């Protein structure tokens, strides 16, 4: 009596399957979220209702539980969900499906032989939502809204590997705001902040969705241009330089000018890892500064 009540009121999906994948029990939570009543599915093969589960991956885990009596875990990270269900409440805005963490375990008969297995389904959409938010905060520059150095460190090395694997081009722009200190000194820090925001906005309007703009340091930025050759990158850099140089910026009624210096570097035979690519771009930036600023090299 008590267990039956727990089975149907617990805030977790519970399904019992036999060795042929026929459903023996389907609790209330599963019915509510799948819109499939227990009476409709009990006695039928699970795959008649959820054909996507009929895959080697799922079956392998079922076999393991039925043979060895261990537990198998379907993490949200790898699967996102096992049963397609709508997310609950306000989370529906950010996710197409309820995110689920599932586990499977053995059920034994009176002779202790493994006869069936149970599947538990947990709604972890809220947790995943927090994880993503945290990740975003961790990798976003608070002032300008562009990516920050954490993002670069996590992604650039992988991106380089990917490009090497598939023989794609990759270019890097090192961008420095010329004489940024004097903007702060002349017009004040709030203006300096505004300048950074406005500059990044102008740059973002010129680059593609597949490119990434990263705030590397105080007034230093880095732009990753995927599938872009050195020549093409140079053109992009020159365009960015012009976009920043004119027209002037306006902050609280006053006008001011800003320019950027850009160093361009690309992946090639010699410079094919993170450190050497960054160094090449840095060196190019240095030469741009030496050449009188507001320059691309």
């Amino acid at each position: 009596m008590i267990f039956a009540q727990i089975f149907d009121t617990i805030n977790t999906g519970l399904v019992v399957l036999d060795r042929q994948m026929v459903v023996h029990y389907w609790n209330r939570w599963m019915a509510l979220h799948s819109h499939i009543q227990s009476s409709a599915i009990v006695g039928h093969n699970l795959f008649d209702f959820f054909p996507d589960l009929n895959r080697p991956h799922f079956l392998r885990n079922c076999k393991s539980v039925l043979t060895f009596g261990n537990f198998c875990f379907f993490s949200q990270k790898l699967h996102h969900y096992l049963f397609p269900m709508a997310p609950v409440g306000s989370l529906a805005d950010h996710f197409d499906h309820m995110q689920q963490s599932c586990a499977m375990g053995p059920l034994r008969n009176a002779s202790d032989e493994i006869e069936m297995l149970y599947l538990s389904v947990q709604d972890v959409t809220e947790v995943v939502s927090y994880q993503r938010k945290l990740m975003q905060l961790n990798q976003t520059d608070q002032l300008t809204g562009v990516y920050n150095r954490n993002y670069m460190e996590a992604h650039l090395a992988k991106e380089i590997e990917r490009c090497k694997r598939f023989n794609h081009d990759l270019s890097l722009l090192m961008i420095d705001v010329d004489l940024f200190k004097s903007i702060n000194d002349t017009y004040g820090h709030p203006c300096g902040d505004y300048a950074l925001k406005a500059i990044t906005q102008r740059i973002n309007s010129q680059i593609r969705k597949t490119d990434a703009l990263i705030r590397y340091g105080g007034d230093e930025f880095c732009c990753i241009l995927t599938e872009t050759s050195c020549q093409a990158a140079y053109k992009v850099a020159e365009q960015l330089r012009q976009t920043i140089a004119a027209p002037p910026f306006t902050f609280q009624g006053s006008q001011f000018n800003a320019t950027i210096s850009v160093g361009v570097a690309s992946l090639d035979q010699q410079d094919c890892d993170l450190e050497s690519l960054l160094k090449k771009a840095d060196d190019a930036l240095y030469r741009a500064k030496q050449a009188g600023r507001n320059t691309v090299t």
Partner: protein
Amino acid sequence: MNALADTLFAGEEKDILQEVMNIAFGQASADLAEVIDIFVILSVPDIQVVRDCDLPDYFRQEISCSGSVHIIEQSFLGKFSGQALLIFPSGAEKDLLKLFNSNNELGQIDIDIDTLEQETLMEVGNILIGACIGKIAELLQDIVTYDPPRLLAQDFSLQQASCAPVAKGSFAISIRTVFRFEQQNVEGYLFLITNQHSITWLKKALHAFLEAYE
């Protein structure tokens, strides 16, 4: 078995323990191949008794993977209880991914390759550990439950992992096998570390195992 084993086990008990482990690992290999289509060779288990303070050194000695390793840790709880440590050389996850995701069924969802590789490692580890412990439990008439496996990726964690399951001043029984996925050329280690508390029950279970043949 090492000399320290004599402090815990009387003569015949050592032999029964070795035979039970041989059978368990042999049956696990067979079931993994026949039922789950996972072709892995498990070497004859090596059983040693180790003092808790010596565990870190023991691991360092036993593991001859040059370079860094991935460690999967999973607790198992029954009358036979302890911790399983599965050790793969770094890079193995790429090879195992080819084995377990050969028709790229998981490629349909948008996951980055690192997560895919890591999670595959965990799933393989979970099944391997479950197979070995499941068979041991079956032979000794015990029922075991499991915590979800955890991935400890750096090898300095060897220190941390070995501290966990064993109470201070006690002994641990380590059962070690080398596993090998031939097709993927992946080799690694599986350690089952069970603590002294299980020993009283274990001895009874070993005798019961043999008595069934009287």
